[in-house]
């Protein structure tokens, strides 16, 4: 493994109007090395990478690429010298096909024209390399699930065969299987001498893959260390600037008996063509019902259908024992349902509205005096969540599009928490959220359940699912493949169901 320097970042600083986001950053990126950058939401990780990618320009500092000073004015220039990036926010073109997206900006050409055959062949090869042959090269990207889009992003970044590959939370939307594949690919790239910058809020992952770790806090570089010289607790301490008791592990399983037996939500034989089939389950008052499954298992589609955002072909939904017709999210809200959608940017965020409006938009009924919205109530409500979830923003009037990804997610989550629902559906609620805030959110979820709110929790992060759920429904290919009780909890067990293997198989294996 040659460990020569590829890119040196010297004294980089960057401000956005009103905020200094990066302050005097100095890092070396070396060939064949995986360099993880850790930091809380809003610490400046994405900003730093965007500077290295030529998308933003730093006010101060310089970049030394293979010993020569370079200045990058655009992503195009970065790509020319061999830098490629997997973006935190999905940055694909929805109406274009998968292969077009992969080769956008660097099409294989045949004279003046695009070489369509080569384009398809190359795309298929790359998809196969990433073990995602199920994504058709001609499919328009808008038809893919979030996880599939994330995979396409990865393939796209790889297609450039970069010398420096930056990954901004590449696994946030991925389940264990795809994450594992990605780890293998990173291993291969490292052996081939590619330098990798890796950002993730999943600590275990970071500690599995990284060689070096740099910690950022509020735009300031705290430390760069070899992975072997640091452990998770220490890293988290550096990130948040103080000791943080590990709330996750300390969170105790609830006693199943303590949960009421009153069924609040029941679903009977729900089907939607090509999405899910014959889904039946019941959730009790105050229960946290987890939903596990692989990418494309149909969990999101199921929840959105229950919520009235999509149609249901057959089956019925009962709330407190009564059959209800939920034709739109408005109806759902009247039955005190709330859904935090998985694709923040597409289905959750109002990018041009303020942080406050984003938090309050579903709750204005509560923030009125007479017919008019009360400014004070409104500001207070938003402020409460900004503080509660530690949303990093200068004020609640700030345009939410200017917040970091994790902070946006927190605001979107706040919106639905504020509606005080009786049934709360959470679809990947901690997508992109840092460790500290995650613990806080886990606490909130548990609190809500303790208050008697029924929670349906979709998560692709198995530890999260196992820790929070009172029971776990596992879906596979649009069907329920099993409901796992706490006594059977294990990552392996969930995965067995998720891949559609029979219970009998599983028990046989367990016997062995």
């Amino acid at each position: 493994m040659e460990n020569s320097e590829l890119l040196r970042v010297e004294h980089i600083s960057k401000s956005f109007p009103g905020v200094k986001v990066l302050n005097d950053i100095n890092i070396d990126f070396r060939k064949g090395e995986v360099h993880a950058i850790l930091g809380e939401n809003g610490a400046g990780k994405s900003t730093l990478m965007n500077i290295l990618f030529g998308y933003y320009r730093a006010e101060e500092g310089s970049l030394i690429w293979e010993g020569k000073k370079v200045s990058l004015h655009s992503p195009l220039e970065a790509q020319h010298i061999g830098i490629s990036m997997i973006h935190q926010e999905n940055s694909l073109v929805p109406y274009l096909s998968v292969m077009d997206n992969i080769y956008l900006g660097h099409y294989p050409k045949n004279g003046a024209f695009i070489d369509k055959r080569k384009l398809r062949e190359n795309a298929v090869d790359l998809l196969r390399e990433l073990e995602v042959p199920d994504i058709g090269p001609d499919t328009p990207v808008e038809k893919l699930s979030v996880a599939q889009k994330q995979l396409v992003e990865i393939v796209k970044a790889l297609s450039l065969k970069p010398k420096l590959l930056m990954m901004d939370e590449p696994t946030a939307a991925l389940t264990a299987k795809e994450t594992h594949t990605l780890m293998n690919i990173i291993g291969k790239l490292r052996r081939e001498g590619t330098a990798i910058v890796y950002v993730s809020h999943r600590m275990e992952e970071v500690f599995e893959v990284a060689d070096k770790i740099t910690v950022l806090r509020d735009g300031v570089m705290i430390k760069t260390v070899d992975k072997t010289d640091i452990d998770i607790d220490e890293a988290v301490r550096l990130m948040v600037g103080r000791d943080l008791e590990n709330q996750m592990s300390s969170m105790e399983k609830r006693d199943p008996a303590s949960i009421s037996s009153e069924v609040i939500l029941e679903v009977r034989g729900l089907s939607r063509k090509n999405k899910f089939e014959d889904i039946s389950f019941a959730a009790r008052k105050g229960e946290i019902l987890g939903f596990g499954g692989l990418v494309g298992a149909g969990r999101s589609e199921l929840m959105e259908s229950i919520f009235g955002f999509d149609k249901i072909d057959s089956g019925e939904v009962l709330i407190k024992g009564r059959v209800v017709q939920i034709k739109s999210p408005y109806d759902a809200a009247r039955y005190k349902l709330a859904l935090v959608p998985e694709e923040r940017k597409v289905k959750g965020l109002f990018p041009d509205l303020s942080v406050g409006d984003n938090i309050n938009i579903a709750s204005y009924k509560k923030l009125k005096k007479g017919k008019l919205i009360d400014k004070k109530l409104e500001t207070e409500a938003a402020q409460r969540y900004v503080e509660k979830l530690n949303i990093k923003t200068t004020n609640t009037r700030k345009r939410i599009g200017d917040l970091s990804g994790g902070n946006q997610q927190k605001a979107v989550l706040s919106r639905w928490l504020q509606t005080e629902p009786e049934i709360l559906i959470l679809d990947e609620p901690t997508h992109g959220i840092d460790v500290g805030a995650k613990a806080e959110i886990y606490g909130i979820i548990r609190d809500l359940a303790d208050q008697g709110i029924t929670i349906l929790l979709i998560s692709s992060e198995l530890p999260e699912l196992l820790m929070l759920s009172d029971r776990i429904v596992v879906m596979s290919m649009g069907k329920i493949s099993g409901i796992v009780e706490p006594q059977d909890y294990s990552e392996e067990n969930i995965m067995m169901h998720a891949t559609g293997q029979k219970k009998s198989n599983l028990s046989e294996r367990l016997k062995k």
Partner: protein
Amino acid sequence: MWNFTTGADAAPKSIKKTNKKTFNELGILIVLAALCVFIGLFNPVFFTATNAINVLRQISVMGIIAVGEAFVIITSGIDLSVGSFISLGGVSCAALIVAGVNPWLGLVLALALGAGLGFASGLCVVKLKLNPFITTLAMLNIVKGISYLISGGLPIDFDNPVAVLGGTVGPIPVPVILMFIIIVIGHIVLTKTEFGRNIFAVGGNEKAAKLSGIRVDRVKFAVYAITGVLAAFAGIITAGNLNSADTAAGSGMELDVIAASVIGGCSLSGGQGSIVGVLIGAGILGVIRNGFVLLMVSNYWQMITIGLVIIAACAFDMFRRSKQ
């Protein structure tokens, strides 16, 4: 347990910023002021009360409709049909009154017609999922055709009590008073009511709005219907002003109204805009037009100037915002 420093000191800051918000329209206000000074320098008549009243009266129709148009634009729609609704409002009200209907009932019926046809645009946009541009372009033709069918192309006498809406109270034209009332109501609706927030939400991200429990369909129906009513109302005012309802009235007004909204800061991609801005936008257009007459700008240069001023106003505003 947790120490939320960021959150804690965010509170006072946010209040400061909130107060700043009123100056969002500062950029175009500066443009408007600059235009006024420029024209006034060359022709002091500009600053006379009579002329100021003239300008206000001239923008009153534009200003009234622009409130509805702003609503539509903020939901990320567009209404190209308002010009023909002006014609329809005047002509249908006049025809009803000539046919012996009580004038005020005629007014109400004409407004209802405007609302209904506006609603029809909304229906196409919502139910048929058609693009608002093409829907309202089609509606422009349909409504114009209806006006012609009603009037037979001839102006209809508008000498009735309703004509008072186009008259004056002392030196102040009634249309100006009506414009200010509508602007104030529009501003309150947009900034202080749930409906107003929903308008922004629908334009900001329709899917997210729907998932947040907002009845997106109703919001859209409402904004097109409101625009229909306001445009029909503006048409009745125009007819009252001339004592005659002209089928040709209002033609081309849609572009002025949209330009006023956009100069005033409404984003055509939705989710952004303000009624105060729209009023200033209408003011800029009104002052330019008035200025041409006052300064006797040669007709060819008029067009070039108006184009350049529109670009300059928007560019200046953009520049100022980016410096914020």
